[in-house]
């Protein structure tokens, strides 16, 4: 099952459909479209609500018109969410969190992918006894509920004096991203024809030389998938951010939650919705830009199984 995701089936999403042949506009065709459109409306509704709410003033929100386009357009909530929303005496909005998240995501993604690629490469040659146990453990690592390891991990970081620092949050993301990413790369390298490696060997190329000159250039597609997976994963993380990042490196999701939970009298839903859109902007952008790659990334995430 571990190889399933990278088998051709996963990437075949991009190919044409194979269902029943299209016919003229029959009743069943109308039914198909009706179902899809209704489903699409359900999925779009929250996004619509977020956008219109974020453009309304508070009085209009209290008029109980969840879906209505604002009668008086205002960008005030956006400015407030980004720049001046408060938690306690800090009134800097989401922007420090945004830059923190950018830093954490960039550095965390880079290290986890470099390390996972090397691991996967090395492991792709390891087909001896014990390999099964190792993969079992890797799978296990991809599954472990974080709550089980958090307490000892905090104590561990205390031992090395890194708790609440930038390296700490990077290390946590690298460790927790490792099992799945390693599996991803290992399965990719295994699927390459072994002749490639043998030929290079004959030419006198070393282990690392082969990795950098032959394997790495070939693994661009899988790397893109891994990047998408890690970027969205790290950006959307909440739990590790609250525990390990420390005050100075607080990621955007944590700051978002702080801002939303801090209220002075009434819940400013317009500011909250503007803040959620801002926080979702990066993964959404990754999603829309990467398009079909994103689907592959998810199918690859299925390596977890």
């Amino acid at each position, binding site marked *: 099952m571990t190889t399933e*995701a990278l088998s051709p*089936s996963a990437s*075949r*999403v991009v*190919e044409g*459909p*194979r*269902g*029943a042949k*299209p016919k003229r506009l029959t009743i069943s*065709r109308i039914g*198909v*479209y009706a*179902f*899809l459109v209704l489903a*699409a409306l359900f*999925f779009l*509704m*929250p996004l619509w*609500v*977020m956008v219109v709410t974020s453009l309304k003033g508070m009085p209009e*929100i209290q008029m*109980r*018109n*969840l879906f209505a386009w604002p009668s008086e357009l205002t960008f005030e909530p956006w400015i407030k969410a980004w720049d001046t929303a408060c938690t306690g005496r800090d009134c800097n909005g989401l922007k420090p969190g945004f830059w923190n998240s950018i830093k954490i995501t960039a550095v965390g993604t880079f290290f986890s992918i470099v390390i996972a690629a*090397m691991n996967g490469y090395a492991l792709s040659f390891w087909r001896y006894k014990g390999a099964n146990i190792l993969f079992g*453990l890797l*799978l296990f690592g991809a*599954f*472990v*509920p974080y*709550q*089980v*390891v*958090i*307490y000892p991990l905090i104590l561990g970081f205390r031992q090395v004096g890194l708790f609440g620092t930038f390296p700490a949050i990077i290390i946590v993301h690298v*460790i927790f991203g*490792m099992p799945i990413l390693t599996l991803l790369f290992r399965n990719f390298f295994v699927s390459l024809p072994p002749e490639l490696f043998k030929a290079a060997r004959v030419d006198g190329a070393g282990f690392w030389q082969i990795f950098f000159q032959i394997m790495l250039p070939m693994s661009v597609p899988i790397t893109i998938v891994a990047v998408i997976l890690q970027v969205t994963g790290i950006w*959307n*993380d*909440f739990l590790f951010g609250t525990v390990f990042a420390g005050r100075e490196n607080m990621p955007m999701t944590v700051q*978002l*939650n702080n801002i*939303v939970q801090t209220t002075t009298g009434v819940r400013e*839903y317009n500011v909250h*919705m503007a803040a959620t859109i801002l*926080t*979702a902007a990066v*993964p*959404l952008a990754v*999603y*829309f830009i990467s398009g*079909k790659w*994103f*689907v592959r990334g*998810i*199918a690859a*995430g*299925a390596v*977890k199984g």
Partner: protein
Amino acid sequence: MILTAIGVFVVCIIYSFLLSFTSSRLFPSFDFIGFDQYERLWSTQRWLVSVNNLWIFGLLSIGSNMVVGYLLAVFMDQRIRQEDLFRSIFLYPFAMSLVITGLVWRWILDPNYGLQATVRGWGFADFSFAPLVDSNTAIYGLVVAGIWNGVGVSMAIMLAGLRGVDSEIWKAAKIDGIPTWKTYLQIVLPMMRGAILTAFILQCVGVVRVFDLVVAMTQGGPGIATQMPAIFVIQHITDRANVGLGMAAATMMLLPVVLLLGLQQFIQWRANQKRMNS
């Protein structure tokens, strides 16, 4: 490298497991007290509610995600126009974090200004849809949000699975005069075991870990109606200062994961056996 990572997992898990048999409060202490923490855990109402919630949330959200995901995949497979557009629409919520999912749905389900109030404003004075304010229904509010976030993934994986099915099968079914829906249900579905299992396990992992969604949406309320094991653990290792109990709970959370993996290994092992025998 990878060994380090595995080492961290193994050491941490063993450490947590050991602490669950101690009377540790805020700091770790190795004063072993046997199964006392487990006894207390399973007589704690909040834990029982949490476990129960995990089951309800898990069964409903995984079930719906699988069924609806498959349905959507099948409908998407009908050579429809704008397939890419539809796929984007079904899948985009997955790009959003669970914190955001929780906040959005909390706002939509707000009893005073949200969906309920709006529909009432349209003239349906008796319309009632505010699951989050009632302790009997709040968990279903979470399920709705979970479905919104997760269906797209199942759909994508199963669509990939559908497209992976040999096209000869379709021709054969057509020749035999089997209706399309029957082909999907009785012939194609069993052939997609891999994709289904993948989607299923992916959903399971998400469910055991569910934390962000509840924190953002209900904070475990009303009352303790939407508490989840993950919140129980985090709260007990910090503010409640009862690490022993928290670790006992964490160990219990590990159990379904071990079982699930065991099941998966078993299926794989049996498949291998079969292959060898034939």
